[in-house]
Structures are given as structure tokens and as C-alpha cells.
């Protein structure tokens, strides 16, 4: 009989202490932040959205390689020798036109692995979190600032440049072969040449 009473007493005591706790919280002010009115601003280094400062980018593709989910795709075109793209703010010379620099924020998993290898620190996370879209394709951000015509113009200038260089390289190669032949005729026994690493020799053949 006494156990039932003791049991009942501990039950009621624990219930009333519990209710004491809740009634105290009843009169405490609420901790909710009313979102649209009181906007919470994220701390400085918050990883919310990727941003690329495109004029600092030298098209080195390190960030695309570091990204585990491959959500950054970059297309670069070699700048022709006549045009000078100038230097980035950190002093690295820019040698590529960036015809396409897309980041698919729908695939990005905010792991921040892309911001570290970047030599010019032009890709970093911006604490801005209200960028939801109705259509998933709008989440692909295009950071390249070249207009489509500029892209075509740059592309075919680069092709022209590439052909000239190829022709010029063939010409140089023919002269070298010609020089090598008459040298062989003039000196019957050529000096033993130092041992050359194989891959250098293959280059010349191709």
C-alpha cells in the first residue's frame, strides 16, 4: 500500500516540477526572429552563394578541377599575340579570353574547395541566401562578360592565329631539315650528340 502512495507522490511531484518549468517559460519572451521583417545577415565568411570576379580570372581551370561535383565549366580561348589582356589585380598576366564561365548553383554543395586553389582569389562565397528560382536552369550563373559576337570574333581570330603559327612552325622545320642535310654532307663524321631525353626527340618528329 505504501509503495502505491510513494509512487503516486513521486509522480505528482515530478509532474508539478515539470509544469513549473513550462509555466516559467510561458512568461519568457519568445526567441523567434520574424524573418521577412527582421532579416538575419550571415557572418562574413558564410558559404551561401558562389561569386566570380571575372576580370581577375586568368582561366587556369584549377577551381573546375577541384570541384568534386564538377559544377563549374570554363571555356577559354588563347589570346592572340596582337591583343594584350593586361594584368589581374594580383599581378598575374591574363593570356586567355574567357568565353564561358558557368557555375551551376543547383549542383553546388557549398564545400568551398574551389576557393582555395584559385591563384588570384577571384572565386569566393558571398553571404547572400535569397536566390531561389522557379526554373532550375536559372540557377546556372554565367559569369563571362563577353558578348556572343565578341566570342565569335575572338574565336575565329584565334583560329587564324593558330593556322599561321602552324604554317610558320612547318616552315621552320623544313629549314632545319635542309640545314641538317647539308651539314651531314660537309662533315663526314658528326660529333656524338649528348644523350637527349626521348620525349624531346619525339616532339621534333611530330
Amino acid at each position, binding site marked *: 500500500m505504501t509503495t*502505491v502512495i510513494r509512487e503516486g507522490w513521486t509522480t505528482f511531484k515530478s*509532474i508539478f516540477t515539470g*509544469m513549473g518549468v513550462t509555466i516559467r*517559460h*510561458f*512568461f519568457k519572451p*519568445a*526567441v523567434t526572429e520574424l524573418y521577412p521583417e527582421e532579416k538575419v545577415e550571415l557572418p562574413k565568411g558564410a558559404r551561401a552563394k558562389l561569386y566570380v570576379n571575372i576580370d581577375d580570372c586568368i582561366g587556369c581551370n584549377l577551381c573546375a578541377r577541384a570541384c568534386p561535383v564538377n559544377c563549374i565549366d570554363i571555356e577559354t580561348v588563347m589570346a592572340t599575340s596582337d591583343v594584350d589582356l593586361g594584368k589581374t589585380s594580383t599581378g598575374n598576366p591574363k593570356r586567355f579570353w574567357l568565353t564561358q564561365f558557368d557555375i551551376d548553383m543547383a549542383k553546388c554543395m557549398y564545400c568551398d574547395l574551389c576557393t582555395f586553389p584559385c591563384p588570384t582569389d577571384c572565386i569566393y562565397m558571398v553571404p547572400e541566401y535569397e536566390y531561389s528560382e522557379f526554373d532550375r536552369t536559372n540557377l546556372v550563373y554565367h559569369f563571362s562578360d563577353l558578348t556572343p559576337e565578341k566570342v565569335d570574333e575572338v574565336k575565329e581570330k584565334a583560329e587564324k592565329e593558330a593556322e599561321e603559327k602552324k604554317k610558320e612552325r612547318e616552315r621552320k622545320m623544313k629549314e632545319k631539315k635542309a640545314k641538317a642535310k647539308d651539314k651531314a654532307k660537309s662533315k663526314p663524321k658528326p660529333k656524338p650528340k649528348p644523350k637527349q631525353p626521348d620525349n624531346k626527340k619525339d616532339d621534333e618528329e611530330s
Partner: protein
Amino acid sequence: MIESYGNINPVLAVLIHALIPLTIILVYALVAIWGERKVAGFIQDRLGPHRVGGWHGWAQSIADLLKLIQKEDIVPKDASRFLFKFAPFMMFAASYAAFAVLPFSSWYIGSMIDIGVFYLIAITSVLTLSVIMAGWASNNKWSLLGGMRSAAQLVSYEVPTIATVLTVIVVSGSLNLMTVTEMQSGNDILGFLPNWFIFQNPFLIIAFGIFFISILVESHRVPFDLPESESELVAGYQTEYSGMRWAMFMLAEYADMLLLSLLGVTLFFGGWNSPFGSFMSGPAWGFFWFLLKGFMLVFVMMWIRWTLPRYRVDQLMHICWGILIPATFVNLILVALWEVVF
């Protein structure tokens, strides 16, 4: 009472008598649902509904009602259609019918019948029926379990409820709730205490404790809300319901909660009598005091809900048959002895 109106034709009078509790229930249900979410919010250090309709989201439950009305009313494929559809309305009808005998104030009572308490207990057992009907009819394993659990729970807790009500009848001597309330008017216990039953006889305090526990069980409130325990049975007997039918279940649950707390107020806290004896008492004030005490009890129910975890089914049964029922009968004897002595 109807005869005191004199010349209004009886049909209109009956209509008025039927509509007053209905409006009270509907308005109360909307306010109580909003109130419960606000109480839950404040207890948990958050705000609860805050946007709909301006100040503290007062229109939240109206918005819910509109949403539920236009929601699709799904009846599961091979549920037994008639029982499934009828269960919520039967539950609401049961708790609404019981309002007939509650004395809202000295001037107004639904029907002044002499066996008011007897009628009320009979009607509330119809609730059990509707819950089992809903549980079985929705052809879902979870709601079947919910239905069975509530069958066991409600039927077995009828006994302590009736026993505690009996203890009060022993003191009051009459089954008519109006006379029960009239016996509790005035305040001359120890000079200032209103002579409500709870103060007249010390053992009635224990009776009220047991009564309060059993009405918690009757209205499926935590810590005894096993029939629709969210974390185990998904939503118990309400799992398959949606739209207006589910709203009807919610309405019935809150109406049942108000009904039982008003019964508790009538039996133990002196119904429409004001706590200050003659000051602020009269037919109009009766309404105010009666509903205020009812809302106080409802607030305590809500407060308990957001504090305690839930019992298991067999522990529930053990409490009922092992502790509550013996306690009520012992208490009954003690109350009777106390009455004889004083």
C-alpha cells in the same frame, strides 16, 4: 426556460435553446484551437501563429477552417463508406447533445431535467462508439490500432468518471445540475471562501483530482492521448481523414474538452456562482463566471499537454483499474462519512 417566454411560439424557442450552445461551441472551438497554438508557442519560447489577420494571428483558425473546407475529402478505396462518413458527425453530435443539461447561468439552461447528470454520462459514452467506428471503418492498420486503443481507454475510464460524479451527487443530493449549482451559492465557509463543493468537503478535492485525470483521458488529452498519438500510430483513428471531416473531428475534440471541463466546473467550482458571493452575481454575470472557470480548466489541460510525455496503453489500464477506481470508492465512503459527521 421555455415557459417563461410566454408568447413566442415553441418552435422558435426550441431553436434559440438549441443555437445558443452551438454558437458557444463553434466560437469557442475556433478560439481554443488558436489559443492552444499560442499557449504551445509561448510555453516553448516561440510565438505561435503570428501572421494571419494582424495582431498575433487571431484569424488563424478561420483561415484553417476555410482551407479544410476546400480540401478534397478522401474516402479510402475499400473503407466501409457509410460508417467512415458518419463517424465524425456522430462524435460532434454526441458532445453537442450533452450541452443541453449544462446550466450556463441561473436564467438559462438547455433543458431543466431532473436526471441531468445521468443523461450527460449516457451521452458521452456515445463518443467511444464514434471513435471505434472511425478507427475500424478507415481500413488502415494504424487507425484500427488507434480505434482499439481508444475503445479500451474510454470504456475503462467511464468508471472513475462516474464514481467521482457520484461522490458529488452524494453531497448535493440531486441529479439536476441546476439545483447542484444553486446549492453552491453564497460564500460563508471560513468567512470568505465561496461555499463551492470543493471547499465544503476536503475529500472532494481528491475527488476533483481523480475527476480531472479521467476527463483528460475522456477527451484524449496528453498524457493519455493514445488513440491519436502522433509519434506511434501516425495519427491513430484520424489517419485517413482529411478536409471537412477531419475538421469535424477537431471540433468534436475541443467541444468534448469544453463540455467535460464545464461539467467539472458545475460539480466542483460552483457553476455560475461568482467567487465573491453576492458581489458580481446575477444571471448575466453567471454566463461570464461559468465560461471563465471553464476556460481556466481548459488552459490547465493545454498546459499539461505541452509538459508531459505520453503513457503506454497497459500503464493506462493499470492506473485506471489499479489505482483510480479503488481510490474513488474509498473516497466515496470518506465523503459520505464526512457528510454524516458535519
